[in-house]
């Protein structure tokens, strides 16, 4: 059984009388445990809507979303689903509940009634995992954006999730902050946590095992970074290729031949060297 399964899931926002915006239209895919999936697409293509379907913040208007076999329509299991699938949002300031960092990390476990001693252990462990232990007693307002996002990740980790969804969690950060968060995400993925990372940054997407591309609420591409970047549809989806891929494509037009699609600088260097020899 796949860990995440979408069967023809659609979602419409109601806006005013009888008016709806169809944000997702019949999306189906499944994700296995431990995958690192990048979800991308233009602004308004439905990425955030899809993310909110994955932990039951929204239930699909049609179709089904199953998390470890549990249908998100099952209201009795809503909290089980939210414990399994944690979510880190875009704006680090708008997802922190408590002033003191350790209190914020404890918020989730407190909500689900974990005993006190265990909360303390989980908070210690989660802050350690994101490298924020020394800040635990401090107030969040003095942290950098990257540090705030790491606290937000710790807050999700304290729920011991199987899946973490990042909804453009790096988009408001400086390059350093982005790198910090990507590193944490990869580290967590290495421990077996499934990562769904929504991003506009193709360099980030290139580091995933798999890229899913949405366009106007429909799933249009789903494959490894090499497959997706090689697809002629990429540009129609409004995506800018990573600089290395773009350069390789231009070189190809001028007669270079790369044995496989380039996704990063290393691949580019190797490809060029192979030609020169």
């Amino acid at each position: 059984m796949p860990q995440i399964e979408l069967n023809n899931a659609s979602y419409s926002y109601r806006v005013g009388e009888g008016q709806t915006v169809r944000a997702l239209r019949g999306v189906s895919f499944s994700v296995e445990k431990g995958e690192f999936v990048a979800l991308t697409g233009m602004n308004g293509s439905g990425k955030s809507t899809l993310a909110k379907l994955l932990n039951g913040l929204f239930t699909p208007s049609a179709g089904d979303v199953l998390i470890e076999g549990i249908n998100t329509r099952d209201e009795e299991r809503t909290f089980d689903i939210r414990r399994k699938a944690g979510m880190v949002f875009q704006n680090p300031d708008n997802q922190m509940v408590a002033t003191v960092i350790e209190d914020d990390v404890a918020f989730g476990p407190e909500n689900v009634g974990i005993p006190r001693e265990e909360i303390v252990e989980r908070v210690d462990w989660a802050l350690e995992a994101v490298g924020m232990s020394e800040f635990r007693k401090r107030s969040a307002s003095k942290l950098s954006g990257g540090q705030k996002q790491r606290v937000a990740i710790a807050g999700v980790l304290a729920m011991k999730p199987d899946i973490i969804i990042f909804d453009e969690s790096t988009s408001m950060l400086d390059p350093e902050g982005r790198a910090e968060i990507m590193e944490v995400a990869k580290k967590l993925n290495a421990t077996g946590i499934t990562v769904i990372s929504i991003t506009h940054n193709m360099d980030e997407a290139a580091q995933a095992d798999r890229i899913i591309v949405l366009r106007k609420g429909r799933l249009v591409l789903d494959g490894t970074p090499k497959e997706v970047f090689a697809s002629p549809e990429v540009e129609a989806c409004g995506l800018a290729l990573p600089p290395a891929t773009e350069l390789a494509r231009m070189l190809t037009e001028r007669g270079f031949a790369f044995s496989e699609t380039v996704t990063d600088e290393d691949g580019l260097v190797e490809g060029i060297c192979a030609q020169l020899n």
Partner: protein
Amino acid sequence: MFKDVAFGQYYPTGSVVHRMDPRMKLLLTIMFVVAIFFVNTYFGFMITAAVLLAIILIARLPMLSVLKSVRAIVFIVLFASLVNLFMIKGGEVLWSWKSLQITDQGVHTTIKMALRLVLLICGASLLTLTTTPVEVADGTESLIKPLKYIKVPVHDIAMIMSIALRFIPTLFEETNKIIAAQKARGASFDTGGLIARAKAMLPVLIPLFVNSFRRADELAFAMDARCYNATENRTKMKVMKLGAADYVGFLLIAAYFVAIMLDRYYFGGVMDSLIFGGLV
């Protein structure tokens, strides 16, 4: 430009007073505030000052930090003193000019009122200097918990308090950003009369409001995503526990309370005339 609200006036020294249970500190502050309204002799004020001084020393607070909070009420005290001085009549007339009159009772009442206000603020500031706002909020939640039996939504109130505390610095930062953005477009905030200035604030307040609603919306999703539910099943990581210092503190303030009551209802002004002789 402003101190972190999370710590407010908090002056960390790690003293035993700082480490006391916030619930006890709140309770003792309330007891102190009640007691000080019963003080009506100079002897009573001396005891009060001595108790405050003892706490300041134990908490290792610099005198200046306590006096700073008094500075905020200097004008109120001066104004109230002037009014009292001329309005209260009784006893010997010490000075008079046309219909204005100062009497000896007026002088005593005024001095006592000023002392009461100043000592009251000193006492209250001892709480905020040794306790973070977050601790005060947690302590308040715990103290008002019994009210849930009369259907007061204690947990919701506590949640609102803690979110408000959390967002004050964020909104403050945002206000500064919007002001800077409007200034860059040529807005001016410090010229013109009161009305012109108030009007100039409008282009700041509107985006601030709109953004606050957006923030509230996002925060609600973030809280839901972390399984927020205001039910009884919630647990708390931090449990407050009374320690030896709390009991000692309680005894100290209780003794002070009793002393004040004895001074007022049993000794009357005896101690004052013993100490100050004919002056009072």
